[in-house]
């Protein structure tokens, strides 16, 4: 059997009217009648309250509650919140004594809302504490601690230290009930530290503290120390005329003696304990069980039977099945000792059946406990989670801000780069346009043409000179017209090519001929292409392809519509690529360079690929010579 430590249970009251010992029930009724005749509702409430308290002190709890109900009625009628709070708090305490949790809870709330209306925080603390006590009794420890700590917070905030020790002790007791002994000890010690402070601990609180200290020592099996604490408790109880404390202390001492096998000492102490008036019905049960047990141990079954049967007569035993079972077991043992086997069997069966149902209850309690543990854990996890979440949230905000800043910088950077790139692309394009113009109308070409004209003039070839001049003017005009446009119609491009070739032909004294072939259905005036991409290759073919040949040169240009592109095929019958001088290579590479730059730009701008191919004809057929160039120029009509 586990050692149990009985605790001191008492309820905090919100007000105390002087209660004269000599007053009898009739006096209270007289007071009620008098108030009634005066129509004094508050007086009525007060009178009923006093009667209720009188009943309570005479352990007539039901009658007490009936009186209190009347008191509450009159208090509510008089709209005195203080009175309502005091009465309902008292009622709740009564109900809680009776184990009627729901009613207790209900009246505590009535009390609570009444004091809230008054704005009396200290009374609120008291009620919260009482509620906490109730929760603890019903093993709802999380709420119990919650309410108790709220109560303490209210008191601390209000700077009210009155009976603060009691509050601490109470929290400790909740922990004790919850089985968290470390916390129990922590709060009891907190309370204990306040024992010297005036006001902080009334006699009841002090008693409870010593009782707890004793209990803690017992828990640690420091029985000697426990006995010392209980002795102190006894002394305090006797000194302050608090029989409850003395009784409780003596019960606890007796139990320790019993544990230590000192039956005589235990019995002696228990016999002393029972002489003190003990308010708690539970402790009345405990002391009687203890006495019965001790007598039984001493072999005096008859004495034992007296106490055991007394226990059964206490109505509250219904609320304490554990004690009832214990008593039944004692009765069974007593009957067995008395050889009254029929009775013994009866008690045994009663014990067994109760034990069964209790075991169920125990199982349920265990489940509840487990649930409680789970709830507590869950709550803790939630708190932990919340903290983590908060941290995460903060972190996320920080990260978000940083990311946003980084993104902003990046966007600005990208915009800057894009603008820059666009500017550069434009610059490049303009540069290239100039380069194209220069390639087309390169100074070398211009002065050569002018030289040729001079030659015609000097030879008096008037018509040739004028005709040559017109060609040159026409090409110059066309070049200027088209060099800054993005596109040119195929017709114009062909016109310029022809013009160019004609000029070259005149300059070269008709040493070569050419053919420009295209299908008559080719939509030359519709098709738009990037301007002057082909001309440098034609120029190269004439200038370098035909350089050093002794036979008539021939240039073939085929233009074919390939849908997305126009294919230009430029073929000469010159000496081919192997015969190039270093000078001509430079020119070829220069022309190629401009071509490639333009190609890249056009591909970027219009997203159109185009092909360029240069074939040395000799590589394919040794009988042939010359260079064939194939260029696919993209059609830009859709752009």
């Amino acid at each position, binding site marked *: 059997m586990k050692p149990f430590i009985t605790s001191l249970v008492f309820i905090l009251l919100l007000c105390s009217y002087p209660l004269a010992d000599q007053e009898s029930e009739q006096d209270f009724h007289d007071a009620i009648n008098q108030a009634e005749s005066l129509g004094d509702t508050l007086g009525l409430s007060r009178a009923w309250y006093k009667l209720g308290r009188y009943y309570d002190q005479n352990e007539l709890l039901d009658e007490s509650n009936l009186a209190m109900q009347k008191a509450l009625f009159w208090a509510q009628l008089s709209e005195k919140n203080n009175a309502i709070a005091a009465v309902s708090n008292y009622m709740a305490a009564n109900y809680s004594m009776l184990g009627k949790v729901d009613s207790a809870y209900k009246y505590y709330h009535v009390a609570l809302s009444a004091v809230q209306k008054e704005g009396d925080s200290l009374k609120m603390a008291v009620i919260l504490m009482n509620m906490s006590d109730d929760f603890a009794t019903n093993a709802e420890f999380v709420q119990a601690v919650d309410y108790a700590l709220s109560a303490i917070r209210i008191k601390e905030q209000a700077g009210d230290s009155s009976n603060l020790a009691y509050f601490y002790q109470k929290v400790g007791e909740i922990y004790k009930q919850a089985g968290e002994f470390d916390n129990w000890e922590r709060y009891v010690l907190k309370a204990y530290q306040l024992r010297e402070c005036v006001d902080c601990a009334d006699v009841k609180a002090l008693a409870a503290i010593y009782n707890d200290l004793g209990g803690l020592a017992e828990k640690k099996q420091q029985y000697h120390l426990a006995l010392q604490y209980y002795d102190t408790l006894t002394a305090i109880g006797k000194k302050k005329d608090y029989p409850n404390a003395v009784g409780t202390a003596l019960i606890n001492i007796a139990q320790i003696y019993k544990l230590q096998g000192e039956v005589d000492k235990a019995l002696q102490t228990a016999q002393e304990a029972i002489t003190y008036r003990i308010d708690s019905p539970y402790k009345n049960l405990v002391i009687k069980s203890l006495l019965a047990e001790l007598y039984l141990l001493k072999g005096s079954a008859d004495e034992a039977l007296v106490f055991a049967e007394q226990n059964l007569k206490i109505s509250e035993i219904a609320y304490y099945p554990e004690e009832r079972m214990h008593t039944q077991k004692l009765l069974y043992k007593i009957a067995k000792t008395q050889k009254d086997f029929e009775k013994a069997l009866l008690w045994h069966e009663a014990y067994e059946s109760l034990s069964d149902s209790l075991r169920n209850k125990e199982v349920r309690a265990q489940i509840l406990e487990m649930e409680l543990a789970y709830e507590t854990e869950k709550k803790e996890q939630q708190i932990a989670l919340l903290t983590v979440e908060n941290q995460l949230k903060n972190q996320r905000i920080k990260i978000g801000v940083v990311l946003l800043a980084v993104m902003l910088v990046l966007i600005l950077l990208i915009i800057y780069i894009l603008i820059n790139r666009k500017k550069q692309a434009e610059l490049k394009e303009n540069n290239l346009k100039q380069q194209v113009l220069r390639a087309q109308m390169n100074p070398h070409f211009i002065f050569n043409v002018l030289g040729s004209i001079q030659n015609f003039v000097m030879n008096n070839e008037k018509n040739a000179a004028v005709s040559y001049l017109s060609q040159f*003017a026409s090409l110059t005009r066309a070049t200027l*017209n088209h060099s800054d446009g993005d596109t040119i119609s195929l017709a114009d491009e062909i016109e310029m090519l022809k013009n160019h070739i004609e000029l070259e032909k005149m300059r070269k004294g008709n040493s070569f001929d050419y053919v420009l072939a295209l299908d008559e259905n080719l939509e030359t005036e519709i098709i738009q292409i990037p301007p002057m991409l082909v001309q440098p290759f034609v120029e190269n073919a004439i200038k370098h392809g035909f350089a050093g040949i002794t036979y008539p040169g021939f240039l073939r240009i085929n233009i074919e519509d390939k849908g997305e592109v126009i294919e230009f095929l430029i073929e000469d019958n010159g000496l081919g690529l192997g015969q190039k001088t270093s000078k001509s290579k430079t020119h070829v590479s220069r022309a190629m360079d401009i071509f490639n730059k333009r190609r890249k730009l056009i591909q970027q701008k219009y997203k159109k690929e185009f092909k360029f191919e240069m074939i040395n004809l000799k590589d394919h057929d040794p009988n042939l010579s010359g260079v064939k160039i194939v260029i696919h120029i993209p059609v830009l009509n859709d752009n």
Partner: protein
Amino acid sequence: MIIKAVVIDDEPGMQAINCRLLSDYFPEINIVGKAESVENAVTLIKTQTPDLVLLDIELEDGSGFEILQKLQPYSFKVVFITGFDAFAIQAFKYSALDYLLKPVNQNDFKQAIGRAVAFIENNESTNPQLEVLMQVINQQMHHKKLVLKTSESMHIVEIDKIYFCKSDNSYTTFYFENEPKILVSKSLKEYENLLAHHGFFRAHQSYLVNLNHVSKVDKSDGGFLVMNNKHEIPISSRQMKSLINMLEQL
């Protein structure tokens, strides 16, 4: 009859060439003076009252057009000469006026002066053409007229009334809603850039279409445009996309 002519050019060489060509090919023309600036030209023309003016557009102190504006109204025939003035050339094209490009090509010169002489001898008026020219030059962007010269006559048509132009080698035929078509001995290309500002679209190698008179785009059979007068015009597949874009913007 003796035709009096003046040559206005700020380049002495060009003045000389023009005079030389005039006297070489047109001995009946009497060159009564030369000028190199707007100011001198105006004085010269006022004093000499020539029948023919060879007028360069770019002068040292202004534009050849300024001279015409200062002398209005006038009755002489002008042959314009320009080196490289896209705007002026466009204006000449609108008004179907003869112009010469530098350096002057002898054949072009003979043709242009020959036509001018015929004009003068027939006492024909170029005033309607000059009117169109002035509208274009004065930046009246809403100028609505185009001069079409055929072998027999000169038509001043409202651009908006043209339905479409059809190319036939170097000839262009203009079609209208009801009026008879007009055949001009100029290539369609000449008009393409000119009329692009007036909602015309080169739908096909052979067709320039006024989109304002289009009633329907039929995408079957490679696509064709149906005009308000039910006339059908083929669309080059290459132009379909730009055509749709243009029509959406209308």
